[in-house]
């Protein structure tokens, strides 16, 4: 008995470029019910805070209403919203196509949102405005990158930038994500992944990886929640790439996915076997690797029959039983014939720009001026 996927489309009369769940509070076990959206391509863009929740008196036939978001408050934003993240529980940082980055504080008591601080012209081409293309947040550190190839490290508590890496990249940087506490990985429009160590004094990337062959731009990147050496990227021709940063300079696998640039790639925060991608072709795909070759052993010292699925019976040295060799992560397994891929929205022709997943609810922000809330059945 499979639960069906329930979804709800809410028209918000603005094209949504970014959508993000509020991170769930650590103290409670409840998952978040608030999310924030940023719009683009409008004369007046807005950052809006929405509430998605179950009301107390819920009847069976009102379940669909639980998927309809309600607007709590909004704030004006100058320029297109190109990056949106939470810093803490009430503060939102947004980057803009005018090259500035602003912190918005959500005042829960009055249900309003206002700018706490704004860094202007972080990215520029001399005197001209240059869009800031992406940002990444870890604790109170914010890293932004732009079309000028610059990377700026900010702190949410300081007025001036902590560090500016000029010429971090000679092409436009399209995506950023934190790998570890002081390590960031970026993807650019020449199809390269670069890792930067923010503590080192050198401005050069610590590691550069790319796909050999044609230069196709990479637009999005996300890292595996449990294992920071596994990274997934979305490229400009719709290919999902899985990379292992410890190994060679090329990706582990390239999966042909969409018909257009993959704007966002998101691993599920708690159930890392699940990955979501959204693209310009209007599709949102759910990649489920939970059934992929579960006990694939890497090392060759094992004597005995190969690993079968679940509970291999081979004669193993006792020393192997306790973490002597690692089981290969499902994403890195060379045999991915058991990967399940589901397309989550039908009948959508306009691009989906952003997705975010929290426990079982997936949010999508689209160019058809709508927010799509999808409740997924329980995932393995």
């Amino acid at each position, binding site marked *: 008995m499979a639960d069906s996927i329930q979804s709800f489309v809410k028209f918000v009369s603005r094209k949504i470029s970014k959508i993000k769940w509020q991170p769930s509070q650590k103290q409670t076990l409840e998952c978040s019910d608030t999310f924030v959206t940023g719009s683009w*391509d409008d004369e007046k863009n807005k950052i809006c805070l929405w509430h998605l929740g179950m009301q107390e008196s819920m009847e069976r036939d009102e379940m669909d209403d639980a998927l309809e978001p309600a607007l709590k408050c909004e704030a004006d934003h100058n320029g297109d919203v*190109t990056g949106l993240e939470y810093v803490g529980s009430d503060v939102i940082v947004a980057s803009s196509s005018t090259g500035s980055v602003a912190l918005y504080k959500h005042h829960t008591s009055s249900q309003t949102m206002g700018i706490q601080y704004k860094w202007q012209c972080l990215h520029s081409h001399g005197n001209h405005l240059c869009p800031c*293309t992406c940002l990444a947040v870890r604790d109170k550190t914010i890293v932004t990158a732009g079309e*000028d190839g610059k990377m700026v490290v900010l702190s949410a508590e300081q007025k001036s930038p902590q560090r500016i890496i000029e010429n971090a990249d000679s*092409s436009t940087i399209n995506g950023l994500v934190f790998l570890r506490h002081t390590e960031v990985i970026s993807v650019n*429009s*020449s199809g390269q992944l670069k890792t930067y160590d923010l503590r080192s004094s050198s401005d050069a990337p610590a590691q550069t990886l790319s796909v050999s062959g044609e230069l196709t731009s990479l637009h999005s990147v996300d890292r595996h929640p449990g294992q920071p050496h596994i990274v997934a990227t979305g490229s400009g021709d719709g290919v999902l790439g899985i990379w292992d940063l410890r190994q060679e300079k090329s990706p582990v696998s390239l999966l042909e996915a969409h018909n257009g*640039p993959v704007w966002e790639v998101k691993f599920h925060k708690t159930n890392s076997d699940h990955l979501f991608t959204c693209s310009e072709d209007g599709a949102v795909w759910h990649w489920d690797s939970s059934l992929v070759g579960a006990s694939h052993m890497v090392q060759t010292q094992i004597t005995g029959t190969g690993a079968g699925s679940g509970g291999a019976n081979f004669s193993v040295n006792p020393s192997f039983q306790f973490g002597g060799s690692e089981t290969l992560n499902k994403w890195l397994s060379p045999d991915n014939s058991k990967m399940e891929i589901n397309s989550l929205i039908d009948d959508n022709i306009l691009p989906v720009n952003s997705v975010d997943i929290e426990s079982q609810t997936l949010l999508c922000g689209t160019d058809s001026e709508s927010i799509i809330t999808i409740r997924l059945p329980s995932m393995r």
Partner: protein
Amino acid sequence: KLHFITAGRLFDDLMKEEQPESKTTYWDTIFRLVLQGQIEKACRLLSLHSARQTDDFQTLINLLKRMPQLSNVYKGSSVAEFDMKWRHWRDECQRNYEEQKFSINPNLETVVRILCGEDAVFSEVKDCCDPWYHMLISKALYQDPTVKACDLHYYIQGCQDAYRSTTRLGELDSILLSALESDVYQVIKDSRTVFSNGWFVAHLTDLLHHCGQLDSHRLQFGSDLQREFLLLEYAGSLMSHHSLWIVGVSYLDHCAEFGRKYLELYLDHIPLDSEKKANKILKICEDRNMTEQAKSICKVMGMRCIRNKRLGAALTWFLRSKDVGFATVLAEKYLLEYSESGEFTNLDLIDYLGPSMLLSNRLTFLGKYREFHKLYSEGEYHAAGDLLLALLQARLAPKQFWITLLIDALPLLEKTELIFSSQQTRELMKCLEELTTEYKLGKKRDGLGFTEARKDQLDVLKLALSRNLPKAILQEGTVNLL
């Protein structure tokens, strides 16, 4: 019920009251409900009246309840049957009225007169069925419920006259008139001029076209062209909108004749504010095989990058559109930078070009030259030497760059171990000769020549080459003997 919601609202308000009849809107609401044919609600309101048990009230409620409803004409009872039933009922209402049963309460009397379909009463209650088409429906309901659409115009004049003193006929009214007369073309024509937004007329025509309701030869251009023309008009207004252009694209896709041409023109006018937007528009072009537009977008973005001194980003745009000309221009810019500053910029891109460097000769040269530098820094002198010579021989290098290449050979020549064989040395000498003669000729013509520093460098080179030649011959000779 959908358009005229006042009645419903008043009804809801009254139902909340304890004593609805005390409110001034009571009778007004009842009139409105009856005029709209909402009999059930009218009955409910009437039954709340304190005097409901009196005869006249009861009779009226009875009459109302017995009003025949044309619930479903396709199931069983035919139109004629309904007509007969209705006439019976109307006659009964008539009888009741004439028997003066309602003379006490003028309001009740008015209701009955409405039920009888008496003309005069409608003028009395015209405030309750404003505007004229409301009255039209109400009249038709009580005077001839089975009236055919084409006969409606008999009633129109009367209704309009009732309101002539208070309101003027607007443009919307004339469109409605045309619609009532089923004059489709007039409706389309007027809708175009009246409504500021082309949405209505475009969709209406589209729907009519798909139902086959548009008669081709009555239209100026034929039905599909007419539809297309209106769609193009509407799409045009969308394309100039700052964010709805993407919807306009979908509309243009459905215009078979001219949609593509229009789209090509419009796409050129959408401002490319950021790379992301440019990427989106590029995808639209690529999906529809509009290679010209795609190329021009890449060119615009590339030029912008060059102006902003972002040569690496510019190169990615030109590589994407496979623009040979501009790739060459960029490669020359890089080489110029190197020869001026002695250093390469944007190494992170150039070193990773891979097969894309084959797009343009200059670019290939640039890539290979970098490879030469890398080989040299890694200590692979023989391979570096071979590559350098290959670059010179293949004539991949522009003449201006030969000096630099030859000077680059100098450190290799000065190494203690032999890098260049005698054959290779002779080749190098040949190149040097060629270069110097060309410059000497050029000097005679244009007065250009080498700078002093360059001349010295070339002299050193000549010396090094002439020293290398005998060394090479010796070594090769020695090997042979052994």
